[in-house]
């Protein structure tokens, strides 16, 4: 009798149509009674093949069980959407990130080669005007330093296995990644604080206006040599960076909050959605900040002083923020006069 049963099993398992029917019946049963389905068959039995079952389950379907431990998420046994999520993280996200970040590096390199460094046309005057007060620079550097660590430790998740693991070996990579993860988790908080303070102190100067359209039409005086368009304290480009930081930072903060406290979203699917949002926004955010770092350092002569010492050259300020200089001069906060004093070249 046992041998005849065995023969029957083999013959059933060997017939593709019967196998498909068995899988379909099992699927119907699972969808109708997910909890009871676990008692009706074993995933390793011949009548149900796991890959067939997974392929048959549609998006949003999942097989759940009954548990008695406090972790409610542990009740999800099989969730095929998780494969899409894993595929996204392992395949699509590195491509998105690679294109965004390497693409930005390439664009900036081409821009530097074609346009060259944006110089102060009248040269350094030797007279200074206060651009950012100490507290503003402090807030900027708190946020920026946290961002750099967050970006590098975040990129390690997507690219570390490919780029760093072969260089350092598994033990060093694992140790580094563990510390990077801790830094990522905890530096997120001063980063979020910095975002809030920046929003409060700079929003009044970053409201878009008609002047910004004019600035954009003229390429900010940066794309093409010639007259710089007028601008107040922040021009349209800087306003764009400000809103990218605030909106992107807010999205990163909300999604990151759910990753830090993964039981807040309520279920695994929601958590996966938040990780995708976090990862995609992060890649775009990093690419945008590369442009910001470029134009604030090597891309534009005299620009770094604004966040370095807080004081910029008067001629630089006149060229890039002519209306702001007039306002500051009217308040008596800036030296007047227009005679440039030649300064030695850098």
């Amino acid at each position, binding site marked *: 009798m046992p041998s005849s049963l065995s023969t029957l099993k083999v013959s059933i398992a060997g017939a593709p149509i019967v196998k498909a029917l068995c899988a379909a019946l099992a699927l119907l049963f699972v969808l109708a009674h997910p909890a009871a389905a676990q008692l009706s068959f074993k995933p390793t039995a011949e009548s149900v093949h796991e890959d067939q079952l997974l392929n048959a389950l549609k998006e949003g379907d999942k097989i759940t069980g009954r548990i*008695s*431990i*406090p*972790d409610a998420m*542990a009740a999800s046994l099989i969730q095929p959407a998780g494969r899409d999520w894993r595929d996204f993280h392992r395949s699509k996200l590195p491509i998105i990130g690679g294109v965004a970040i390497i693409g930005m590096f390439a664009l900036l390199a081409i821009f530097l080669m074609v346009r060259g460094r944006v110089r102060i046309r009248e040269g350094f005057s030797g007279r200074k005007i206060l651009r950012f007060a*100490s507290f503003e*620079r*402090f*807030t*900027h*550097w*708190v946020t920026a*330093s*946290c961002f750099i660590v967050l970006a590098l430790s975040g990129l390690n998740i997507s690219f570390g296995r490919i780029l760093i693991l072969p260089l350092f070996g598994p033990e060093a990579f694992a140790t580094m990644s563990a510390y990077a993860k*801790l*830094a990522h*988790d*905890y*530096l997120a*908080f*001063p980063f979020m*604080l910095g975002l809030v303070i920046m929003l409060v102190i700079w929003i009044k100067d970053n409201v878009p206006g008609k002047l910004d359209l004019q600035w954009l039409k003229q390429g900010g005086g940066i794309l093409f040599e010639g007259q710089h368009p007028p601008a107040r304290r922040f021009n349209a480009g800087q306003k764009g960076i400000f809103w990218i930081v605030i909106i992107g930072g807010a999205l990163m903060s909300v999604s990151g909050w759910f990753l830090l406290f993964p039981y807040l979203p309520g279920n695994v699917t929601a958590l996966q959605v938040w990780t995708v949002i976090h990862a995609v926004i992060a890649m775009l955010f990093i690419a945008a900040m590369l442009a910001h770092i470029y134009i604030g350092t090597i891309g534009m002569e005299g620009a770094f002083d604004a966040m370095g010492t*807080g004081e910029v050259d008067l001629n630089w300020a006149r060229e890039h923020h002519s209306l702001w200089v007039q306002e500051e001069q009217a308040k008596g906060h800036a030296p007047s006069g227009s005679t440039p004093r030649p300064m030695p070249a850098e």
Partner: protein
Amino acid sequence: MKVFLAALLFAAIAAVGVSLVLNTIQQPSSIAFTTGGARVGDPGNNLIGPS
């Protein structure tokens, strides 16, 4: 430069402070998401707790 260094120091202190607060108000997953019946004696050697 002073402002920059002060910002770095503040970020580091804030991160350490947050870690202390979070570690005070949160339990390890080996305790928070298990019941007494399922809890093991040495979670570090059982892959479900701090090592």
